[in-house]
């Protein structure tokens, strides 16, 4: 599995060739690498806004009682924090950044199947985010419903629910088109000789993710339109006084929003599966198991949604059916963790920053996953539902899992994307602050949650104070880590990167850093005996 490396302009795809110059060359690009970078920059901005909103919450929660602002403002802050983080950061997430930038290269393609559609996806993303954020600044005030927009409150609230909900709808459309693009790309543009089972595992994870994007998102799309129709036309699907059922909203919402978490985590797991073989210099243990478990997670993940609704008032039968299915979906994730660890066993381990973040991912994801089981069991669910325990659980999975995998991928593919290395020491320092800060921020929330601290509460009883204060301090340490990491990555003063700084074996390491516009001078092929991870 090799391809010829020839001399190229140093800046590759970053150089402006073609008709347009400067900013316009980027805004009208159909190059998957540029689109991936534009998503990255936009997402970083949204992520930082979301972080600031989170820190604002932590500051207010430092002591009981009002510190800086009142309960209405607090409700607005956690709502927009959720909307931004979920819909503009982690759902697009690793799929739009690495799925766009790296996936086509990994399968030996020049670009995605529909490059212009790809650009449209990006613009819909920006438009949707703008509409959602506009909800903060228009007439009747920022939405205070939580990012979950539960009926009946989302129907009755006098705040700007429609703008936020419509923004989410447009973002969903962007996600659908990206998923569509990736499905066709993976089916049609693999290199000659690259069967599905010779494809690297990151494209496998993108493939599974894309199906979830395509099949789950429309359901929330129509549900969000129903919210608008209820508010504007009183159609009443969720209004008991007109014959509707509020629990029906929850069903429809979570039929998407649970699979959505697999949209978040599957690409993250895929990235991790690329990084581990490189830094252990070993082929992946259980390639087929990892590929199939991606599909299994996507598949079974469709059928567990009502574990968000155990206390909502639905039937007992539904409760235990969904609890059973929830325990089932944990199995393929566990298979992956087993395979990752086994890949590392007796490998030539080199703890470079990408690998360190990956180890962080595995540790934090495990905690998140295990605490998910606590919630999947009916009896314990009742105790922790709507408490800080849940908040800690999903932050461990989403931030500790998806977030750390994102950072891992960034440190892994940064040389390829920008043609430069970063400072390893700063990366390790950043990791240290991030890891310690993260655990100090969220672990106390498990404890106070179990003690009874409700989520989405602006105020609390005195016995939770210590937990909140530790958490807020953790948030500060985490923030420092983020700054250090971003300064390191933005400085661009590092040494020039070689094609293959890490000793990887997949296609992206056979082309220059940064890659030329159409990726390969000579399109690669896979021979009969070639494998995606052919280490010794």
């Amino acid at each position, binding site marked *: 599995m090799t391809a010829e490396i020839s001399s190229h302009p140093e800046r590759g795809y970053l150089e402006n060739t073609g008709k347009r110059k400067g900013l316009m060359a980027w805004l009208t690009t159909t190059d998957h690498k540029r689109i991936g970078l534009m998503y990255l920059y936009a997402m970083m901005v949204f992520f930082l806004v979301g972080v600031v909103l989170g820190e604002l919450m932590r500051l207010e929660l430092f002591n009981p009682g009002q510190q800086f602002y009142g309960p209405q403002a607090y409700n607005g802050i956690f709502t927009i924090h959720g909307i931004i983080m979920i819909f503009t950061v982690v759902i697009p997430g690793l799929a739009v950044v690495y799925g766009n930038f790296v996936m086509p290269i990994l399968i030996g393609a020049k670009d995605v199947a529909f490059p212009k559609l790809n650009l449209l996806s990006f613009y819909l993303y920006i438009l949707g985010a703008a509409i959602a954020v506009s909800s903060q600044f228009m007439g009747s005030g920022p939405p205070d419903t939580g990012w979950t927009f539960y009926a009946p409150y989302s129907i009755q609230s006098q705040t700007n629910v429609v703008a936020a909900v419509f923004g989410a709808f447009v973002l969903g459309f962007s996600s659908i088109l990206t998923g569509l693009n990736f499905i066709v790309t993976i089916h049609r543009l693999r290199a000659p000789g690259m069967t599905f089972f010779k494809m690297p595992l990151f494209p496998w994870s993108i493939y599974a993710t894309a199906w979830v994007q395509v*099949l789950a998102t429309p359901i929330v799309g129509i549900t969000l339109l129903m919210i608008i129709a209820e508010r504007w036309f009183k159609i009443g699907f969720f209004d008991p006084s007109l014959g509707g059922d509020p629990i029906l909203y929850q069903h429809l919402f979570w039929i998407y929003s649970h699979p959505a978490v697999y949209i978040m985590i599957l690409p993250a797991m895929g990235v991790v599966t690329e990084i581990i073989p490189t830094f252990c210099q070993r082929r992946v243990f259980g390639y087929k198991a990892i590929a199939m478990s991606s599909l299994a997670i996507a598949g079974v993940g469709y059928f567990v949604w009502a574990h968000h609704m155990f206390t909502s008032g639905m039937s007992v039968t539904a409760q235990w059916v969904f609890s059973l299915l929830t325990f089932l979906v944990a199995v393929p994730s566990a298979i992956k963790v087993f395979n990752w660890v086994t890949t590392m066993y007796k490998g030539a381990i080199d703890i470079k920053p990408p690998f360190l973040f990956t180890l962080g991912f595995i540790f934090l994801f495990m905690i998140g996953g295990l605490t998910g089981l606590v919630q999947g069991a009916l009896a314990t669910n009742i105790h922790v539902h709507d408490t800080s325990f849940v908040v800690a659980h999903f932050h461990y999975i989403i931030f500790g899992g998806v977030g750390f995998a994102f950072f891992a991928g960034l440190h892994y593919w940064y040389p390829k994307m920008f043609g430069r290395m970063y400072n390893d020491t700063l990366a390790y320092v950043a990791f240290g602050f991030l890891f310690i800060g993260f655990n100090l921020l969220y672990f106390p929330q498990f404890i106070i949650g179990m003690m009874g601290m409700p989520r989405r509460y602006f105020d609390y009883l005195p016995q939770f104070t210590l937990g909140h204060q530790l958490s807020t301090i953790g948030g500060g340490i985490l923030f420092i880590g983020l700054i250090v990491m971003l300064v390191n990555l933005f400085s661009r003063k590092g040494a020039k990167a070689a094609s293959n700084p890490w000793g990887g074996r997949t296609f992206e390491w056979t082309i220059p850093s940064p890659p030329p516009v159409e990726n390969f001078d000579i399109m690669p092929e896979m021979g009969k005996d070639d494998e995606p991870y052919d280490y010794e």
Partner: protein
Amino acid sequence: MLSETTHVTPYRTYMVVLITLLVLTSLTITVTWIDLSAFTVLSALLIASFKAGIVMKYFMHLKFESSLFKILVIMVLSIYILVIILLFFDYLFR
């Protein structure tokens, strides 16, 4: 790469399918005049599903596409049906 549907469906096939669809439509209307309670819905849905099937098979050329397309259609329909079944674990047992 030229268009791969080198298969050309004869005009006649389309006419036959259309007439079948029209017959099935009148069948649906007739059936629903008979009150079989739950079975009325079921039979209307079954006929509709059959109509949908021949629209997909002939008008949408599913019969002449690679098996990948057929597998995907079945996969999507199965997921949807399973979602309905799971949803009714709540509504039927309240």
